[in-house]
């Protein structure tokens, strides 16, 4: 009996995680419990689980932007920034069906220029836009949550991008060319999601607003101007060398607070405290999930799962197309259970030799891998972004999953183009001198 569990420790651990989560226990805690079960079954030191969790969070620098982007969003919501932005957006696109859905897509595009993290986008911009979309009941919270999670995947495709930097390190490719290669695919992803939003809005007949008279537009724009300046300030701050992308989160929160207090005079100390506490609670809830994923990485690494996958792939003689399809399916399904960083650092390095052997360009493959890892974040059952928007909207994950499928399909179509039309990905880097 004990021998059986030792021999199938990783299987047992995964079974425990799936069972506990499906039976309604906290997903993050279930992942820690599964990791502990693995260590016990193997007879290893059980303290490796808390050690991995603590060191992973303590050294997870790129995650530090999350709480401050949540805070920025909360301040924008209690101040009237979000309201003014909403009125401005409605005036511009409210008369079109699915207008705010398109605003959601565009806002992710803007946000992706400042942040290299999909999670930061979902919690930052996402929180504001979900509020806007659901305030007057035009969109269900589940739909707003689903489109927010889906569009957040664009963040790390368009530069700057932390996942692309991680990939550049493991694959020995140029960060600059990878950044350039991500631009067209990122825009394509935004386009297909906008089309999907348009189609759904037509089919479900989402209500529209009365057209705002043109003469009202200047006043509405003027009132929203300070809020509209936020992306300009952040982009300027990052590309002007004042702040790093992680620090930009703090600047966003500071700017929102500053504008709310000085221009709109709409935030008092009490409200600021409420925003702080609310953001900190969201951070803790999301953080426990991240902590669980980080802890399980130890199990994946210790068991040599990546090498097992590479060996398995090596048994077959794939054509180039077949190989690309298999790799896509593989990373996509891994993305359901692992967080994006783990895929890029643990799994991708081991696939790279076979990718090279297949004659696939490594910059092209980098974009494929990162897009895949990001789509994995919204693919059920374990999709970090799904859980995060669930936490923001207080909607059951199941409802969001029902709404997110069309967007996953749209993204997979984009992924198909990205995968099988290398020139689409590589023309920009080549313009910049890439010899691939």
């Amino acid at each position: 009996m004990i021998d059986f569990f030792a021999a199938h420790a990783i299987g047992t651990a995964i079974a425990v995680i799936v069972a506990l989560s499906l039976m309604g226990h906290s997903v993050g805690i279930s992942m820690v419990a599964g990791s502990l079960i693995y260590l016990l079954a193997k007879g290893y030191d059980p303290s490796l689980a808390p050690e991995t969790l603590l060191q992973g969070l303590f050294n997870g620098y790129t995650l530090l932007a999350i709480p401050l982007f949540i805070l920025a969003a909360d301040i924008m919501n209690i101040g009237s920034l979000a309201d003014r932005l909403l009125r401005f957006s409605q005036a511009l696109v409210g008369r079109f069906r699915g207008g705010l859905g398109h605003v959601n897509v565009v806002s992710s595009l803007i946000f992706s220029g400042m942040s290299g993290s999909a999670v930061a986008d979902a919690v930052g911009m996402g929180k504001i836009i979900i509020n806007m979309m659901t305030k007057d009941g035009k969109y269900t919270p589940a739909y707003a949550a689903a489109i927010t999670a889906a569009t957040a995947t664009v963040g790390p495709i368009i530069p700057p991008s932390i996942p692309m930097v991680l990939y550049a390190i493991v694959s020995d490719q140029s960060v600059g060319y990878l950044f350039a290669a991500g631009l067209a695919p990122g825009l394509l992803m935004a386009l297909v999601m906008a089309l999907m939003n348009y189609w759904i809005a037509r089919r479900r007949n989402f209500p529209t607003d009365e057209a705002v008279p043109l003469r009202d537009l200047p006043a509405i724009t003027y009132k929203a101007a300070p809020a509209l300046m936020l992306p300009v300030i952040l982009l300027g701050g990052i590309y002007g060398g004042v702040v790093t992308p992680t620090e930009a989160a703090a600047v966003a929160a500071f700017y929102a607070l500053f504008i709310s207090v000085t221009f709109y005079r709409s935030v008092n100390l009490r409200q600021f405290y409420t925003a702080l506490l609310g953001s900190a609670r969201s951070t803790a809830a999301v953080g426990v999930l991240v902590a669980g994923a980080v802890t399980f990485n130890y199990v994946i690494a210790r068991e040599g799962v990546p090498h097992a996958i590479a060996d398995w792939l090596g048994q077959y003689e794939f054509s180039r197309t077949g190989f690309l399809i298999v790799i896509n399916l593989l990373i996509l399904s891994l993305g359901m259970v692992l967080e994006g960083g783990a895929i890029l650092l643990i799994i991708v390095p081991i696939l790279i030799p076979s990718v090279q052997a297949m004659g696939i360009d490594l910059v092209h493959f980098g974009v494929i891998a990162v897009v895949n890892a990001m789509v994995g974040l919204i693919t059920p059952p374990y999709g970090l972004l799904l859980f995060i928007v669930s936490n923001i909207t207080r909607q059951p994950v199941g409802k969001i999953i029902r709404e997110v499928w069309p967007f996953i399909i749209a993204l997979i179509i984009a992924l198909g183009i990205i995968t099988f039309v290398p020139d689409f990905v590589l023309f920009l880097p080549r313009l910049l001198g890439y010899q691939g």
Partner: protein
Amino acid sequence: QDKVELIYSDTVSENDIRSTILQDEFAACLGDGFDFQAHHGATLFQQGTELTAMQRGNLDMGNLAIFDFYNQVPSTSVLGVPFLFRDYDHMRAVYDGDVLADLEAEIEEKAGVKILAYPYIGARHISYVGDREYMTPADLDGVKMRFPGGEGWQFVGTAMGATPVPIPFTEVYTALQTGAVDGQDNGFPATHSMKFDEVINYMGLTSHLIAANEFTISLSKWNSMSPEQQETVQGCADNFQAALDQVTLDQENELKDQFIANGINVYMPDNQAFQDHVLQVYRDSKYSADWPEGLVEAIVAVGQ
């Protein structure tokens, strides 16, 4: 007889040539009596946590940096002093000789690990985005240089006259690109593998740190092996060190040519001015209090 299981963790990427060298020159050399399990890219243990993992019996071997020992064996900080070694040959002569015998004994006693070899990983130089050659510490005044995080590392930057900035490794590329920092201090291999050479236009060959890793095994694992097994492990570690040294030296030469060909101004600063300034700053600092009596002098003497 059972195989000796050796679990190894480092922070180098799986596809890095250093990982290949480890496989070819150490793992393959061990032979059938060993089961060597290498985990690269800090996937098993985070950078800097390998030492405690070894002490707790959860890891057998690692390739550590000298600063990893500082908390438990403060006297090791002497090996992290800039301009301690004149060049590669000096560094190699010191590690091959017996000047460090006392320090190594102290490490074994206090940290419970044994250093098998000191593979060379390259000299660190200053490289930056600028419009002129910085020749002396005074030239670095007000220049924002990224040095690795941690008090000890940041002090290297201060001692060299720069304004040290602790940007995380993965953010350095963007920071150089946007101008959040002006420069950084990795050697040729890391500057190339992290793509910083895409952004910088000057590289001053300060060689301020002739850096070697500490290829380390836990004492409990070491003592559990037979003398023959110990001999095998030590021999293969020497093998690994020799191979990695050669690869690093070759790489430095190739990359230097490549950088120059790509239009980077690679030049030789006034290193005597740097050395005088840096060693003085260190002697006046709290760090020199940790140094074993006379060791710096003994190390310098090896170079003469």
